[in-house]
């Protein structure tokens, strides 16, 4: 019966080597959770920064959950994509973060990574674009044994989320 309201935005990204970036995002919740209102996933516009290197999206996130348990606290998974001059899109980073569990405004940074692939793939990526992508996207937020995955660092995605929690104290949960 507890409610979690997440209101905020994906501000932008820094530190990516590519310039025209956009971000696909989604929220993954556990079985105890129920999305009352808002959209679960979305995609930002493509931002090409003219000044500085930060890409600004200012993409609104407005989610309202009801929950009967704490497990499966909502987590945000992000995919940062870049668009080249030909309008082709390629992946430049996967990222993931938990939605904070304390009420109030939070400014969050989400670092990203991308799979490296074999040397051929790296070469192809450098010259013709494209790149290795995860076959199963849920790896991003699932704790599969990732130790064998070789990745390269992407940039950082910045978010601002404000949280309103309700009725948690009724069930003995201090926030």
């Amino acid at each position, binding site marked *: 019966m507890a409610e979690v309201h997440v209101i905020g935005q994906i501000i932008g990204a820094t530190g990516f080597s590519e310039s025209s970036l956009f971000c696909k995002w989604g929220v993954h919740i556990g079985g105890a959770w129920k999305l009352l*209102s808002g959209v679960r996933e979305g995609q930002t516009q493509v931002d090409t920064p003219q000044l500085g290197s930060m890409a600004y999206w200012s993409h609104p996130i407005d989610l309202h959950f*009801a929950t*009967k348990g704490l497990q499966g606290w909502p987590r945000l998974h992000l995919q940062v994509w870049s668009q080249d001059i030909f*309008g082709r899109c390629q992946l430049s980073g996967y990222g993931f973060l938990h939605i904070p569990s304390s009420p109030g405004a939070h400014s969050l940074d989400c670092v990203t990574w991308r799979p490296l*692939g074999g040397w051929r793939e790296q070469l192809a990526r450098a010259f013709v674009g*494209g*790149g*290795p992508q995860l076959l199963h996207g849920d790896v991003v937020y699932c704790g*599969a*044994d990732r130790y064998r995955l070789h990745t390269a660092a992407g940039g950082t995605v910045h978010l601002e989320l404000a949280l309103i929690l309700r009725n948690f104290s009724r069930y003995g949960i201090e926030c």
Partner: protein
Amino acid sequence: MEPQERFIMKKISKRREDMKKKIVQVEKSSTKEPVDIKIQQVTKQEVLPDEGLTFFIMGGEECSDFQGLNQTKDQRLKNDGYEKHAALSNLQNFMDMDDEKITEKVIFPDLLEITCSEYEDDQIRIEKEQEYIFVPSSSPVINRDKLPKNMIPRILEDEGFYIKKKPEAYKRTCNKMENRLLILEEGKCWFEESGEIISLPSPIKQSWNFRKLITVETLNPGLKTIYKKAIKSDIESCFRSKIEGQREMCQLDLNVSMLQFSHHPLFNQEQVLCSRLLQLYECFQNRQQQNIPHLLYEKLKALTKVASDNLKINQLTKKSLQDYNWQISNTKQLYDLEQKKNMSLLHSMLKTWKQIKVLRQRQGFISTPIKLQFQRLKMNIVDEQEELTKVSETETKSKGEDCKNGEKQEDLSYLTSQFEETEFERIKQPTLIPHLSLTAEVTNLYKCSLHEQRRRARVQKLKYFIKIFYNDKQVSCTSASPLQLDFKVMFQQIFNIQLINWPETIRLEVYEISKRTSILAKIYLPIPSNTALKSKAVLEQAEFSCDKLAVPACGEVGSNVPFLLDVTGKEELCLLTSGKLSYSLSWALDKNGIPLTPMSQSLSSVCHSMLRNVDARGVPGIPWLINTQKLFQWADEVRIDPNDPDYSDLMEFIMYTRHKGQAIPKYFRLEQLQEEFNFVSEEEIKKNKRFQLLQLRNAGQLDVSVLQQMPLYDREIPDLVFQEYESQIEKDIQISDVNSITSQRIHSINFMKKIRKLVMKKIVKVNKFNLSDVVTDYEEIVSASQLKHAICQLVERRRNLKPQRRERKKVAAQTIGDGDIHLLVRILRAYNIPSRKPALSRSPGHDYSFSNLSKIKDNIYVNIFDETVIEKHEDHCLKGCSGHSYIRKNWLGSVIFPFSALLQQPKISGTFQVNIPPLLLGYTWSKTYVSPKEDYNGQNLKECTFLNIFATIEPQISSVISNTESDKFTDEPDITLLQRAQIFRKDCEAIFPNRRIITTVFNDEGANILVTRYIRALNPPKQLLDLFLSDSNATLDIIARFVSLIPCLPDTLNENDGFDIWMSPEHCINLTIGNKEEHAILLCNYFLYFGKKAWVLLGTSTLEGQVAYVLTQETDEYLLWNPLTGQSHKQFDPFCPLQSADCLFDNENVWFNIQHNSTPMSVHFDNSRESSWKQLLPKNIQIQWMKSETAQPKEILYFDTNKSMVEDLKNRIERTLKCKLMEWRPKQPTRWNRQCTAILRQILPKLELGTGSLVSIEDESEFERLLQFYWVSGFPIQLPYTDLQSITNAVYQTGIHSSEFPQTEFALAVYIHAYPNNILSIWIYLASLVRHQ
């Protein structure tokens, strides 16, 4: 610094040269020893001060030494630096000494000692090194040395332990390692019990402390990455493919099994004969299976038996007897013929077999395993013979008896019987049953002749493969398979072809690989019927042949080349390469067992298949393999080879899912211990009103006005909020307890809604947003006129009383709040209202009411009532004290216009005909009739009532401007045509923005097609055609009526966002629902069936807004048909509600009206005139394009409406209406007059077809009797059947229940006239009776 340095170096080198010269000199003068010594002495003296120089020289030597020692580079560099440094420090000395050196050059040679370079012999060096370096030998080590003493090597693998494969290493390396370890003191611990070096992790150890091999197999499939090319994301196409994927996930399974040649260029003569024998045998077997002789025999038997039986009883007339005889002899003949055929077949088989045998003997080898054996069947023959003789006996007997009757026939019949008997004798031959087997031994290769050997070798070299073409595009290709010696090619491959397009052709091309690859034959496979599913598939055979010339080389016969068969000698043959392909082609089943067949095209199943499609596709995005369990099961059953690359995807998927499932063994547990930590149950969350409300709001199903803010607590939320939503759900569900016709209606309405929604979704999705849709430029704030107006206002003098005409401002619908809209309806006057029969002397008063307009779909009703007031004086009351007055309203008729009509046009004003029921009880038409203003030519207007109405909305609401750009999305091949149509539409709209034009619409699959595709002659129900065989006009009327009885889907403006979605007419008929345009199309198609010239006319009507009419060309005039009412208007009918005729189309073209005036009266409907009608397609295009016209089926099959269901529905309606009437009169008792009801029931059926004399005299007389006691007023209502609610509404409209007269009695009769396809015309006769005082 540097130039200086270089300078110094130069100097040094110069001096060295000098010194060398000196040395040479010295050596030359070596005889002068005393001098030498002297000089040496001198130099020695000199050396002391000149230390720097020596050092310098020494440094140089050192340097070269270092180089010789091959030191590392940086060391050298360092040294160089040092050298330089040294040189610099010595620089000064050098300078000082310069003078002296020149004078004492002679002394220098003593400074230098020249020695040869040092050299150490390799051998010695190696020997020296040997002392320090250990090189293990690479010779193998004996096990004894490696293991502790007296230990036998233990090999675990031999003992049955599982030992993982060891990493590979060269034997030499291993040996070296072993040797090295043996030398080491503690080296022995590196050996395992088998004597090998330990190279595997200990199986007992928990964690591995070595790097795991990362190969593709071991990588967790969940972590697998895939390289994706950077592709420009085409959102549009991606959507399209997705949609299509959803729409038609069809799959054909093609199993190419085997190729069997019946003739091949490499056949030798024996094989030619063999294939001939095989053919004969096959033919024989087929005949055997059909067993015609036997059937004929049975027939003969039966016939003779009947004949003889009848004869015995002497029942036969002469004629029938003759008939029997004739039949018997006929059957006999047929039987003989069949027998003969069988015999000849057997003969030829025997002959061929003999030829084969001869040939085999002659050539001395056997190259085919064929063998033919004959079996004699004697028993059967005897039996049959007996039977036959018996038959003939009876026949003769019958003939004999027959002779008694007709003497003349005697001779003849006798002869025939005799003849037959002889025939039987002739057949008395033993039957041979051939048995063909492939058991003969083929002679071994080396025993054959050289020719044969070569031939066989050539056969084996040949390979074949088959390319598969789907709709003329290559889809796949089999692997090349070799030709076997028995001229079979085994393929045994199954191809799954996933389809998007409807299959037109499936072609297989057989290719031959010898030296070159060449095409052999093309085989077209028939497309399997929808019922041919994979489970049922059996192998079919397709024959092919090829006329390629193949010249025989050695022993073979070639192809398309004449050759002589040796055995027969004379026979010259010319055979073509031919063969049979065994294949099976079927539709695949998906994991749920639903066949993946494309939407069936057959008419009868259109409805069902569409429904299924909607339901199945209602759930979008079902992942490919949803039922993993089933998949596992299947994988286990089939035991697919995990290494087979064909299955790699599948295996990967299985591995992935298994891997995912590893942590969760058998039971499904998403989050462990979830239950324990839950603080509330699922139900509580579900029940929570606040959450429900939030979800409803999110789904957009909640009226925003109800609650501006979500209440925080449940207690603040009224239950009322959910009621509307819940009732809506109930409506969807509650269809179980109704009549089948009703349920069909509800189904079809829901179905249409779904279809429309789906199509809309598809269109809208595909319709890409333009930048202008998302980003709007700043709005133009002031238009010039507005500005002028504002300025003028300032200047203008104030004259308050001067009336001014003001433009009505259009207001966007969004800006209007509650209560802002007013609907203004003004009834100006009415003409020719039926007058009450002179029973009571009050003149009719008018009362106008219009009903609710809460929703935009509603119609506006203008009902005409006759209001009567009766003053009733109660007897016991004091006179004058109080007059009780009762009001009674009698419904006379109504004008209905939909609200959308008001939205589509600024105002509705004009004179309209009132729908007056055909038989108004208690009313007559006035004899002195005042004609309305408009001139009228002809036609009796005596029985028409007209109403002059003005209606408008205040403020005027601007309707949604639908300038949707749908040109992007086109599926159809004739894309240029569509573009053309779009351009045409835009051009037309530019000329006359107010006129309607539709050139392309979306069909039920969301594809954009031309409107002309809908038009094609369709057959009306036969029942209707039979009704008025002679009167063609009446037939047309009844057909128009039939169409008008199809319930109309109320279409509103914003529902479709300007997209027109039209179902095809046959859907319209099958679903018994359609919108205005579909009605018009259907009617037009029916008219075309009669060979009439008919067009669909789009336009606007004053009363109905946008309408579609049908225009037909009569001999001298044009008729306008309103498909919704079934009425026809002449072109010059002033009361035709059509206001503007904008656009015409038929199956060939679309015409747009470019005449100045578009009212039907002033329009020339001759569309061949290009000055008045702009046409979409020029004439020459029409012809080519018409041929590819296949949008509709040729014939509609109609089914009869179930009579019992109609009866049931009738009773239901009657019951409901009675209940409702009583319900609506809560205060007064409702009495039913049975007598009147009975009369009404008799009248009603006549009304449907009746045109002129409505009430017969009998009814009249009965009424007369009734009228003596009652004042009767009543009216019939006619309406198409949609649902009960609409009927009760219609009855409620009439207000018959509101009569306040005491002792009013009511009569109600319902009649349903059933047309085919559940299309019903409902008649309700309502009457109220008041007893005369």
